[in-house]
């Protein structure tokens, strides 16, 4: 319950923070932090243009995408407070429910019969396939580390005993930040500000969406960002009382948003052909975490 409210609140101005960071770093005046949300509200009020090629899939996909992310948000805990849904192995369902939304979005891009959108869909499918192992190895390592198999149990029993485990936490947040960047199609992989369709991934997939549906998709992206931020914050909150954990949640989310802004200001997008290699790095870092866990648990004896 707590985490749902916090994530919903955070999703309202998360992208705003990123844009603000970027504008400050590039010396522009820039829009306020609520501007992205205002844009979304304006889109929600607009009418739509539908391609004559599309079928009902195109119309249901954005809402189903939103529903899938919302469902995933319900599973994210906040410190000592479990998510709405919490059971053994919930992070498996978390990943697969997100896959449901992704499946429909990919299919809806193909529904337009456009050459550009198919390209975006193909890339999205490929990269989300490549990034999935990193997430699972990461969660698997922490499951091994704590002996628990649900989000809430893993995070609430996570104790950083030695230096190695601090390193694990740092590496985990690195992996999670980059997973979030990839899942939301941000900088090192995909440039949301690019104007050339051939170099886009997520943006090109939603070229034909307009009005309410486009607003829903954009809001879902914000929500997804806040959700990953919440997961990252859980690595540090532990079982702290609310008066400490809630401010910490916001600080970590803010730090995450600023980090995204900084990365986007100082990095160029990778060449599309090099992206898979980059994503594989994440998997190998996750494997590093896994071996770190084995080391901490003394399994190498």
């Amino acid at each position, binding site marked *: 319950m707590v985490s749902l409210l916090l994530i919903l609140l955070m999703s309202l101005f998360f992208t705003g923070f990123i844009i603000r960071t970027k504008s400050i770093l590039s010396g522009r005046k820039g829009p306020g932090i609520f501007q992205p949300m205002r844009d979304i509200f304006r889109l929600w009020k607009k*009418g739509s243009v539908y391609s004559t090629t599309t079928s009902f899939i195109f119309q249901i996909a954005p809402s189903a995408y939103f529903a899938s992310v919302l*469902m995933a948000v319900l599973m994210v805990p906040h410190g000592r407070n479990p998510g709405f849904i919490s059971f053994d192995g919930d992070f498996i369902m978390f990943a697969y429910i997100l896959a449901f939304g992704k499946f429909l979005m990919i299919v809806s891009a193909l529904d337009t019969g456009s050459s550009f959108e198919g390209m975006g869909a193909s890339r999205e499918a490929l990269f989300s396939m490549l990034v999935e192992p990193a997430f699972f190895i990461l969660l698997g390592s922490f499951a091994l580390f704590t002996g628990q198999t649900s989000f809430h149990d893993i995070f609430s029993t996570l104790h950083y005993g030695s230096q190695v485990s601090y390193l694990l936490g740092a590496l985990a947040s690195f992996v999670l930040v980059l997973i979030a960047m990839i899942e939301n199609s941000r900088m090192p992989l995909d440039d949301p500000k690019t104007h050339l369709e051939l170099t886009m991934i997520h943006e090109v997939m939603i070229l034909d969406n307009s009005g309410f549906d486009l607003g829903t998709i954009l809001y879902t992206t914000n929500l997804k960002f806040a959700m990953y931020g919440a997961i990252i914050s859980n690595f540090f909150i532990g079982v702290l009382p609310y008066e400490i954990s809630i401010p910490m949640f916001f600080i970590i989310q803010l730090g995450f948003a600023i980090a995204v802004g900084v990365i986007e200001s100082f990095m160029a997008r990778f060449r599309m052909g090099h992206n898979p290699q980059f994503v594989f790095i994440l998997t190998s870092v996750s494997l590093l975490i896994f071996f770190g866990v084995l080391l901490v648990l003394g399994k190498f004896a």
Partner: protein
Amino acid sequence: MGTTHLMVWMALVLIVGLVGLIIVRERYRPLLALLIVLANTALSAIPSILALTTGPQLGVFNIPHLVGDINIKIDSLSAWFILIINFTSITGVLYGSGYLKTYSHLKTNLELHWVFYILFHLSMVWVCMFDNGIAFLIAWELMSLSSLMLVIFEFQNKQTLKAGINYMVQMHLSVVLLTLGFILLYINTGSFNFEAIAQMSSNKNSIWIFVLLFCGFAIKAGFIPFHTWLPHAHPAAPSHVSGVMSGVIVKLGIYGIFRIIMYLRHDWLLFGEVILLLSVLTALYGIANAAVKYDFKQMLAYCTIENIGIIGIGLGIGLMGIGNGDKTMAVLGFSGALLHTLNHSLFKSLLFFGAGSVYQQTHTRNIERLGGLIKKMPVTAMMFLIGSMAIGGVPPFNGFVSEFIIYNGLFKGLLGFQGISQTILLVLTITGLVIVGGMSLITFTKTFGVIFLGNPRQELPHEPKEASFIMLLPQYLIVAAMLSVALVPQFFFSYANKVVSAAFAIESAGSAVSFAPMVQSIASVGKISMVFIVLMITIFGIRWLIVRKRHSVAYETWGCGYAAPVKKAQYSGQSFTRSFGLLFSFLKGKRTSERIQKEKLYPGQYSYSTHYIDILEEYFVAPLAKRLTFTLNYFQFIQNGQIQSYVLYGLFFIILVFLGTAFNLIY
């Protein structure tokens, strides 16, 4: 009424059916076939349900002088598979009766089709019933041959015949291995019964029996590198047959493996690890090949290989769990495998039926020639979408339930195992399973998107229209069954659990406490799926309320300013998976293009095509087969086409047997 009586009744129904199908007019044949399948279903379902609820149903069937007592045993494991066989066979008959209408001009082909179908159904049921090795092999052979006749339905087509021969040869390889395994078993224990395996102690022979039987069953199931018959046989067979074959017949390979590991009494960990490794590789190999195929039935065949891999992962985890003394892990692994068997039989036959409807309307299996079919065949498209999502394992569909159980088993093992090699193996398995999930997302978004969405890519011979009701009815039935598994998984899980506890003697009394959280988390998967569906419907409702009064404009797809879009410029299946294929370049793309010759004055037309080859088939199976035929060529003089010499061979054999018996060499 005992099981033996039921057996006799089934045989009687079969004989009546065989005669009846030959006598009745062609119009009524599908109906009669349906009735016979239903009758045999009823006859086999009664003892199966009894076996699941009360206990194993035993019977003895005596054929004097020939083989003596044949033990019939329907335990809960057989019952589980018999019920799956029955359901899929019924949907197959229903679908087939509609599907074959387009072939009504091929009188000779249709003549015996249904005869083989009922034989096929009953032989599969019998395979699950016999405990005696010889009777089992006879039923097994009957099943292989009748399915062969079903595969080569369009025998005029050379390609089909070739696929059929390939299938026949590989199935007989399987029978040879099984026969050798049973003979070895008989030599060691003096009994042909499956149960005798349990008496074997750990020695070299017992390992060999396992290896032989496992390889024999693995050919049927389609584990790599024994999978090469699947991608040829499935596209060649008519769709209802490929649906039943992929849904059930490969599962009988799994049944066999289940049956032998059930009697395994030693070396659990070793066998578990080997099966686990083989299965992960099978799953990865199958789905990676499926992703790049453009023939949609071949794609489904490779996808079957992937799912066999997933089932195998469940079996491997189960064995490792027993080896480690971790009952929860064992139960999760085995029941995950059983549930995935059920789930796969449901969604794979659904997908094959959908593919059949598409093929019937468009006469092509190449997805690059299709597109935009959702407007012409909306119901088929919807069914195919449901099947695709279920097979991709996303909630709220049934594929997720079994994958979730298998994942849980893997994580349980990860926490339970002390040894580092097992821990690493399990983490790599999790990684493999995750990658398989991602790849099946690629595969099925591609297949569904290219076949059903966008614009038609080519002119079709005639305007496609929606499949007939009789072809859609079985698909509705399957979807209903799928949703029931997805929404009430604990019901199916409890029965799978029962099967596993009975088969592996895991006492449920002491373990009831430790299983409770497991059942709870599986029940919560069903509940969450339900909540998810409700949430989606609510959001659709809100969207509809907001959007319905807004004005919306229909316009062409945005072509980035280009106002004359070409249908050929749409993203195709090949281009969708191109970067995937490049990344996994072990699936080597073979490019053939006709070069423009220098002496030509003007460039003419030239073609360009990309094919992906099955590397195991190309570089492992084919060379092996070539070498074998080279050696076997020297024995060709035996098959010389003269009846006289064949009679002579027969005489020789009879004399040999006679002398052998007379001098007590054979007994």
